[in-house]
């Protein structure tokens, strides 16, 4: 077998699982809508991580069974969730005080593009003529102590989403600290993207070939 057929890029669940490894006990974490939300499924309950949702919910637990859903308890993605012992409810201004005041250890967002200087574009695409929807993304990107992005490495039409410069409207400049994709884990450093982990069988050449921005490697 050659190197290419040997490679096993992570699927979306594996990316979430890989990211979850890096979340230590005691962190306060906001997970964005979509793929980021699945990260919680890979953090065992006994590793106490406190999950925050923009709509004033701190200390979310696992998704309930359908029969156990509480109609009064949803997350920012409008999904029904549960509350752990030790959780609390606050209003929207207090919830965003947590975000904007730098109290979250980590926010995980999806993105359309991440640039090598940490710029993130995740809320509007220039081709999109429908109403753009920003939600809490700009607050989270600007406010959390760390912003990590989890996203497919490539667009559906085969373009790299790790770029030298974002084409789409920015969510925040210079905010991203780390990116998790199908191919690996990329730290954003003053020298651009540094690869700190690779999916099984993925080679340096392979990931560089799939990536618009130049990469340096620590793995």
């Amino acid at each position, binding site marked *: 077998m050659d190197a290419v057929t040997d490679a096993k890029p992570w699927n979306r669940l594996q990316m979430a699982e890989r990211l979850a490894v890096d979340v230590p006990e005691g962190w306060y974490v906001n997970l964005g809508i979509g793929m980021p939300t699945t990260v919680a499924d890979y953090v065992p309950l006994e590793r106490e991580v406190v999950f925050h949702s*923009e709509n004033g919910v701190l200390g979310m637990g696992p998704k309930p069974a359908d029969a156990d859903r509480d109609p*009064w308890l949803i997350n920012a993605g409008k999904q029904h969730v549960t509350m752990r012992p030790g959780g609390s409810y606050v209003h929207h201004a207090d919830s965003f005080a947590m*975000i904007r005041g730098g109290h979250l250890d980590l926010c995980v967002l999806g993105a359309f593009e991440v640039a090598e200087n940490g710029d993130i574009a995740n809320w509007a695409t220039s081709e999109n003529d429908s*109403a753009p929807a920003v*939600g809490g993304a700009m*607050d989270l990107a600007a406010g959390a102590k760390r912003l990590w992005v989890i996203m497919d490495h490539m667009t559906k039409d085969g373009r790299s989403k790790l770029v030298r410069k974002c084409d789409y409207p920015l969510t925040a400049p210079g905010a991203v600290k780390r990116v998790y994709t199908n191919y690996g884990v990329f730290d954003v450093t003053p020298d651009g993207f540094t690869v700190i982990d690779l999916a099984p069988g993925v080679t340096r050449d392979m990931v560089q070939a799939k990536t618009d921005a130049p990469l340096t490697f620590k793995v």
Partner: protein
Amino acid sequence: MINKIVPSMADAVAGVKDGMTILLGGFGSVGQPNHLVQGVIDLGVKDLVVVANNAGGGQAGLALMMELGRVRKIICTFPRSANSTIFEELYRAGKIELEIVPQGTMAERIRAAGAGIGGFYTATGVGTKMAEGKEVREIDGRMMVLEKALHAEVALVEAWEADRWGNLTFRKSGRNFNPIMATAAALTIVQAQHIVELGDIPPEHVMTPGIFVDRVVHVPYGDPAF
């Protein structure tokens, strides 16, 4: 005797007029004062500016108000809705204006209006389209943009419990924008699931003190839809 509880929906929404700006509580299906919105629809008022997190979900409440052509402009954070296309159709047809605001900035602008703050500097939105045309300056080593207080003539709020002084509690994630919106309008109107006796809410557990509330109408509608 102070008694902010009004006997009917007509009493609750009396005085809402064409062209007013309305703060509308709720996030997702939870904490939506849809009965008050229906009361305002029934008044027949138009040219409204509505401030809400979403541009209407489902077919009732804000979605219906927009469909009937009563809303001139929406100020919101996330106009898209999984279960409603009314806003997008109006927007594409040029029949409704849209001001997009980051969610934390919207919450803070509302709180500022309630707290007598004229404007504030935040890092959210700096370096993005949201800061275009706004003053940006460095404070303590960080670039920040000036955002202004967001006042309104009316706030429509959903609460869990209310007493005759207008003290409120909210249920779980039904709290969301409701308490801050209650502080930021000239006229704050509440639909409450439960009316309780004065003193039944322990003073430590009041979530919105009655000072912020003008009228309460009893709407025991039950749980939000799944």
